[in-house]
């Protein structure tokens, strides 16, 4: 009798079980993916679109990709983040067809071939924890708070409470715009925002922390301001609303863009049209930002 025979047979049985199990899992996976393929309707559109760029726009672009490819199963869309600059440089070297950007083109990026599609308008709203007694803060004080010069609400005449500054991560286009327009950063000189600031990867987390932390101050995209949880404050006494932003009274506002290399063609054009279409603008874009037509129609 071979030594270790009892163990050997046991091992063989175990292996058999593992193989059967993995076959079951594999067939399940194939079945499920088969379902996905089977449900595809008949649509003429076929093709592949690659998108990269701003993380601010990432969720909107992802949602657009989901809805568009549900309607047109022949189209595969890959959406990636990477930041506005990365997206634009990838578009220029034709790695992607669409670049998401939370800012306009900068000097050397604008070689005249890129076409701008404004897909949303955004107002950045400064918000504080509801316990904070201030309704308006001046722009110099905002600067002092976010750069860490003012550390306590007491210095503004408020209660004795440490100010917890909440900012977005460096990758964020919202942070870039805020640093530039509220804190005076330039391309060469970045602003030293308060070193004790909590850095968050998204609007959702900023809102969560500001609403749950006493003494907190942060900034949010317009669509994320939920007045039951955070308190929006006025900047120099000016309310952060659409009217003020559109005419330029409220400075913390910007367009969000999708860039293409020349006029878009083929599925890329269908996709851009879909994003700019009323249905997508009303159902999705309005949840986080301001639909672009609302701004431009009023402007005319």
């Amino acid at each position, binding site marked *: 009798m071979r030594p270790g025979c009892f163990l050997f047979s046991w091992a063989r049985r175990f292996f058999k079980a593992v193989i059967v199990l993995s076959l079951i899992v594999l067939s399940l996976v194939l079945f499920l993916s088969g379902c996905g393929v089977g449900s595809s309707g008949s649509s003429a559109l076929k093709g592949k679109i690659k998108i990269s760029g701003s993380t601010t726009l990432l969720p909107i672009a992802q949602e657009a990709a989901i809805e568009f490819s549900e309607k047109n199963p022949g189209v595969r869309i890959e959406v990636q983040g990477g930041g506005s600059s*990365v997206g634009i440089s990838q578009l220029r070297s034709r790695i992607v067809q669409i670049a998401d950007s939370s800012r306009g083109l900068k000097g050397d990026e604008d070689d005249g071939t890129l076409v701008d599609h404004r897909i949303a308008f955004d107002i950045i709203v400064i918000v504080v924890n509801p316990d904070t007694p201030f309704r308006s803060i001046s722009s110099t004080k905002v600067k002092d708070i976010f750069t860490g010069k003012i550390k306590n609400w007491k210095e503004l005449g408020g209660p004795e409470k440490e100010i917890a500054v909440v900012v977005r*991560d*460096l*990758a964020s286009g919202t942070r870039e715009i805020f640093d530039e327009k509220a804190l005076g950063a330039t391309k060469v000189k970045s602003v030293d925002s308060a070193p004790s600031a909590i*850095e968050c990867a998204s609007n959702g987390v900023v809102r969560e922390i500001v609403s749950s*932390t006493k003494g907190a101050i942060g900034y949010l995209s317009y669509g994320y301001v939920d007045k039951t949880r955070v308190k929006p404050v006025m900047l120099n006494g000016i309310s952060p609303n659409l009217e003020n932003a559109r005419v330029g009274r409220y400075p913390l506002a910007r367009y969000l863009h999708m860039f293409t290399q020349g006029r878009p063609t083929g599925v890329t054009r269908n996709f851009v049209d879909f994003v700019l279409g009323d249905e997508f603008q009303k159902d999705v874009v309005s949840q986080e930002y301001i639909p672009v037509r609302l701004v431009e129609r009023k402007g005319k």
Partner: protein
Amino acid sequence: MSKKESNGKLRQIFSASRSEFLVRIPLFLCAFLAFFSVLLIFLFILKESIPAISCLGLRNLFFSTTWRPNVSNPRAGSYGMLAFLSGTLMTTFFAMIIGAPLGIGTAIFIDQVAPPKIREITRRGIELLAGIPSVIIGWFGLTLLVPFLAHITGSSGYGIAPASLVLAIMVLPTITTLGTEGLKAVPAELKEASVAMGATRWQTIYKIIIPAAKESLIVSTILGMGRAIGETMAVQMVIGNARQLAFSPLERTSTLTSRIVTDMGEATSVFRSALYAQALALLILAMCLILLVRFVTRSREVTT
């Protein structure tokens, strides 16, 4: 010893065979993979961090507390990691203050005090605790520890304190498991002799067992430190991700690992390279710990 001898004899008989030579090579390559991987990891991390080192210099990179990256123009930023290095060391230190006594205490409990059934339960519990994913412990910390600390201290709740607590939980299994192994290795005769001489259990533990197992207890603590230094996700969720050098446990800061995760997304050129330099610092810290373990265990090999 006898196993080694017979192995050696048999090896001699068969080492000449040619077919064996053919299997030796792939087997050797499998084993060599470990060495090769370490080398490759070191080289890649080093290669990626060279731009930052050459552009900023060691002093600005490792011994400055100013971390002020510039995303659109990376070369214009400052990339000093000292604040995060200090964050790593502080969280590790506080985690060990809580985790090491608890871990070693639990190890002694398992080895010496607990009745068999309880011992089995505790041991399995520790095994399970080792398997709980760090994101889960982080989520637990974020949703329970942070609000709790905010409530009792009046601060934001984020910072070194919750990070250290989370880490203390995570180093516990490492310290306890290795500690138990070390205690088990203490010869039973020593303990029996001590008890036979009329010593109480506490005296036996304190005077005989702990000194006998001292080195493995130290090693288990060092390896626990290794775990604390390298832990990433759970810490990133609770430490507050601030850029400042923290001086008290209630202040927010970052560790080397959490900063890499926070900033890696969009970093390019020097900025990105500076993050690799942080990984390099982590690698060097880990190597120091291994050498420390080697040093501690070497002295044991001499004495026994």
